[in-house]
């Protein structure tokens, strides 16, 4: 009898808990609106929204290779499955044409779409929650005045139970703590502007902050380094593995032009970011640099750069010195040095500064970082030319270099040029980088 009563109250408790959870998780739809006329938005607001869209990197995820801008459909591989970005053009049926400003604001700040469905945090609403009303209104004005594109995003490919959007309510309860931006009165206006943009629209931490097993950013380790699409998103501020501390000026130049002489070139998923920032307002990018520089630098003093292994006097500005450095195989000369002299030196030791010459590899963060990921990716894939922009280029060596050659080259670069102990488990990293570099049947246009 007692048992039965305990059992019954248990059921009632679970049911009540479930109902409460459902009530928490349930979000109502916001009524659709007639698509607003383009002329209903103020031109200066639209322009401001365009700038925010650049800083927010919106088009990078919401556009496929060769597809219409903002029409969505880009496959975003996550550890949990593949999520497809959505159409954010004002098409009434497949885009956000029937979204009111209130619906748009709720999606940006709370990760809930107009119909009331929870959005996956691949859409970084954990950052966008900081954005100000006026800025969201401007971004809305910009998006709603784009050409509508009819494009239905493919269905997400996620396993049970992650494919149930209600599960995201639990995720949000655990990991999503929306805040409004509170300026720091002890700092100047550009710093506050920079912090607002970096932590909000620009969502830098989405890649540069490590994530936990549930895919949430570990806020206690902000900017300690993360990963994006097989590339390392290097740690920033006090965790930076850079050979030379990043200064505000260096950060500003890097974010605006995509390369910086003391640090190297933006690679992989950072390329579209800097391409967007190149068009964004200069003062906003400078503000972001001010805030990022204020994160600090590593406490340890930087070790002096190792002297270049061979005496390359006379090597610059021509590479003749490097060619002379190549002895016959079997003479004891490291294979990696021979490969470097033959395949790399003509650009990287040509004495031409970036962006026309190669990165000074002794300063390259890809060589000094904790992971060989980015070095391997760039050796194999190269740096593809940017459409319509003057930017650094490098040919890839995926078909030319076998694993033995790559191993020898990386050993030389890491140990002799960067003066650091070899990376552990290099073979596995090489295998992963090669998998990523081999063109899939339809990958060509995706570069």
């Amino acid at each position, binding site marked *: 009898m007692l048992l039965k009563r305990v059992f019954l109250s248990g059921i009632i408790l679970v049911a009540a808990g479930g109902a409460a959870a459902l009530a928490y998780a349930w979000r109502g739809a916001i009524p659709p609106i007639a698509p607003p006329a383009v002329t209903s938005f103020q031109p200066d607001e639209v322009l401001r929204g365009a700038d925010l869209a650049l800083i927010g990197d919106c088009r990078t995820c919401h556009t496929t290779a060769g597809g219409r801008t903002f029409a969505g459909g880009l496959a975003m591989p996550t550890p949990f499955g593949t999520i497809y970005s959505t159409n954010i053009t004002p098409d009434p049926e497949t885009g956000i044409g029937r979204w009111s400003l209130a619906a748009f604001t709720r999606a940006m700040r709370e990760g809930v779409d107009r119909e009331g469905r929870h959005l996956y945090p691949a859409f970084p609403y954990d950052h966008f929650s900081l954005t100000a009303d006026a800025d969201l209104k401007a971004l809305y004005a910009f998006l709603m005045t784009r050409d509508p594109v009819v494009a239905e995003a493919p269905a997400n490919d996620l396993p049970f139970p992650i494919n149930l959007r209600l599960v995201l309510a639990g995720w949000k309860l655990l990991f999503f703590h929306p805040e409004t931006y509170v300026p720091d009165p002890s700092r100047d206006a550009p710093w506050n502007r920079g912090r607002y943009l970096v932590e909000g629209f620009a969502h830098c931490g989405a890649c540069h902050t490590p994530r936990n097993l549930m895919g949430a950013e570990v806020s206690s380790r902000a900017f300690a380094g993360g990963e994006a699409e097989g590339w390392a998103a290097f740690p920033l501020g006090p965790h930076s593995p850079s050979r030379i501390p990043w200064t505000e000026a260096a950060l500003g130049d890097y974010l605006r032009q995509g390369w910086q002489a003391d640090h190297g070139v933006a690679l992989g998923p950072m390329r579209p970011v800097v391409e967007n920032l190149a068009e964004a307002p200069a003062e906003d990018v400078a503000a972001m640099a001010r805030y990022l520089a204020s994160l600090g630098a590593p406490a340890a003093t930087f070790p002096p750069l190792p002297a270049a292994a061979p005496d390359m006097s006379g090597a610059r500005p021509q590479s003749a010195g490097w060619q002379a450095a*190549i002895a*016959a195989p079997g003479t004891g000369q490291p294979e990696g040095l021979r490969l470097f002299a*033959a*395949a790399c030196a003509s650009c990287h030791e040509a004495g031409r500064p970036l962006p026309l010459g190669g990165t000074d590899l002794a300063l390259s963060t890809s060589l000094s970082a904790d992971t060989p990921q980015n070095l391997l990716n760039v050796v194999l894939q190269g740096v593809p030319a940017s459409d319509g922009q003057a930017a650094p280029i490098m040919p890839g060596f995926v*078909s*030319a270099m076998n694993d033995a050659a790559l191993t020898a080259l990386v050993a030389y670069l890491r140990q002799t040029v960067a003066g650091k102990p070899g990376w552990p488990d290099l073979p596995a990293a090489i295998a992963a980088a090669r998998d990523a570099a081999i063109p899939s*049947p339809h*990958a*060509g246009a995706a570069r």
Partner: protein
Amino acid sequence: MITFTVNGTQRSVTSDPDTPLLYVLRDELALNGAKFGCGLGQCGACTVLVDGEALFSCITPVMLLEGRSIRTVEGLGTVDEPGPLQAAFIAEQAAQCGYCIAGMMMRAQELLERIPDPDDDDILAALEPQLCRCGTHMRVIRAVKRAAQALAQAQALAQASEGAR
């Protein structure tokens, strides 16, 4: 001395190990099909196949090719007996100045070995690294499709005669 296979024949070359493959092919082996375009691995005129994969021979030091198998446009056929890709490029008159065409054909050969019946998107994606300044792009695409059809027909014929035997 570096030894590799070129168009099915084993060759040993004495060029310095850092010499780009393109120079070795043209200057030491007198295979002038692959062209020097930009010298930076950006235009594709120098494209050859190594172990079946297309690469830019102008930036590939020959020391990386020990024991490997190289295929150049000369390996696709001869003037008297052009191979299927070459015949298709001639039939479609896909060359204007022709400087890029050897590279185009090698990149297309790699594509056809990977995807025997490519659609327009496959061809556009595969040939993206190859530049043509004359503007015969549409003819090049048609030529690759024509070659794919010719290869499919030849294969069907071969299978039919195999079955008849």
